[in-house]
């Protein structure tokens, strides 16, 4: 039987159904999903009210796509513009493969055209969304390289595991030994479900030293962080505005846990923000989502503190657009480029991730033109200063 779908704009009476359908994507907890929706869409500082498109089938909510507000700056004169970001695409399993992705996206673009926007972005598209988007006028700035740090014994274990998996008898014996070893590690490592426990205790111990410049806090300092960002000379690349308003809102995300490493002397000279997920933190790992400093020494000390105090199993950062000095610091600290497939097809086969930035003009007639703002091509990765904090995956 053919199903009839309708795309409508969000209304208050649909909210309960939306947070339930998002149990497939955000978290299994409806209260947490409600808090997340309220933070991201109701309290977003860049849009007046939630911009969410809802798919209905016979009056029942079966899917949604959100557009959350974002404010970008470009050029050395810091020209700013509002460019919403697509996110939170979810379609109930029994309604997939029926064209709802295209229906939701085109409804969003038509509406955003009426609202007067020029471009729309997506910094969190999964593989299927990436591919589907490319067929309806979106373009990719390019895959974003991720660099990853692991403790030395992890890289050795990874190599041993890879070798053992190719020898059937050994792989079985290896699995038994590994399970035993993991149980021993679990007993000795304390609270394995809190990725920041080592960072918090090591940081507290270090902060008591008289010469300590780096402290760890659980909440941001929006004023000081914004003042630092404003003080550091701009290179004109496209980036999200990071002012007091942004910092005050951004880290209230209820699906994430953050830690703020702050380097201070007379004033804040640098910060490094770590993030993990409230949902499955062990599986998600820890990421450096923002990292800013007034000089290279401060930048280096912040990274050293994160790596040495954190005792993390895994630490990642988007490294594509970092300055050369920062990339060198990462390399010297043991970060290596993650082997992410350049091809979407291969990523799909391997179940790998492939972060990318997607862009589209909201008007169809602009799709075949050059996509330029303030004289900079939007599809040139060299024109972007990309940080994980801009993406709603973090």
């Amino acid at each position, binding site marked *: 039987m053919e199903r009839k779908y309708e795309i409508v704009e969000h209304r208050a009476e649909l909210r309960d159904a939306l947070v339930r359908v998002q149990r497939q994507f955000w978290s299994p907890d409806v209260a947490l999903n409600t808090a997340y929706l309220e933070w991201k869409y109701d309290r977003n500082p860049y849009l007046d009210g939630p911009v969410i498109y809802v798919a209905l089938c016979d009056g029942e909510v079966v899917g949604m796509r959100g557009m959350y507000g974002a404010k970008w700056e470009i050029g050395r004169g810091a020209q700013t513009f509002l460019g919403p970001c697509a996110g939170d695409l979810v379609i109930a399993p029994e309604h997939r493969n029926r064209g709802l992705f295209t229906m939701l996206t085109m409804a969003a673009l038509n509406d955003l055209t009426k609202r007067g926007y020029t471009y729309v972005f997506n910094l969190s598209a999964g593989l299927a969304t990436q591919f589907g988007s*490319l*067929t309806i006028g979106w373009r990719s700035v390019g895959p974003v390289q991720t660099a990853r740090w692991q403790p030395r014994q992890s890289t050795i274990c990874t190599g041993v595991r890879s070798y053992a998996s190719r020898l059937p008898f050994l792989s079985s014996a290896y699995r038994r030994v590994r399970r035993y070893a993991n149980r021993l590690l679990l007993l000795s490592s304390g609270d394995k479900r809190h990725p920041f426990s080592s960072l918090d205790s090591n940081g507290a111990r270090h902060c008591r030293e008289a010469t300590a410049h780096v402290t760890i806090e659980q909440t941001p300092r929006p004023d000081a962080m914004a003042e630092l960002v404003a003080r550091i000379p701009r290179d004109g690349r496209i980036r999200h505005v990071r002012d007091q308003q942004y910092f005050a809102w951004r880290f209230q995300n209820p699906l994430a846990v953050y830690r703020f490493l702050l380097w201070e002397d007379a004033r804040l000279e640098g910060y490094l923000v770590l993030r993990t997920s409230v949902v499955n933190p062990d599986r998600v790992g820890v990421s450096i989502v923002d990292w800013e400093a007034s000089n290279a020494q401060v930048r280096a000390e912040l990274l050293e503190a994160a790596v040495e105090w954190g005792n993390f199993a895994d630490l990642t950062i988007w490294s594509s657009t970092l300055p050369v000095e920062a990339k060198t610091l990462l390399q010297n600290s043991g970060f290596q480029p993650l082997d992410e497939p350049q091809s979407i097809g291969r990523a*799909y086969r391997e179940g790998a991730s492939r972060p990318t930035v997607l862009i589209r003009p909201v008007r169809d007639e602009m799709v075949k033109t050059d996509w330029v703002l303030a004289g900079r091509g939007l599809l040139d990765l060299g024109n972007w200063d990309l940080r994980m904090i801009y993406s709603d995956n973090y």
Partner: protein
Amino acid sequence: MSVRDRLVAFVKEKMEESGREWKGEFTDDTPLLKSGLFDSLNLLELASCIEAEIDSQIDVVSIDLVEEWDTITDILRFIEEYRGNNRG
């Protein structure tokens, strides 16, 4: 089985899985993308299938997918041109 036969079998399998039908005769020039017969997940699988045929990875960012992969004819032409350009 020829490349064409494998592609047709793949396309028909995906259409059956999604419950979609092409009204009229399905030919090598039936539009898969422009008609909405194929959605984003099917496209992922199609990309994987084409990469297996050419034994290489494709940077889809550089391709106008709707122009180059819309029909069986288009896909076969893509595969032939790729093989021709990459013969040693």
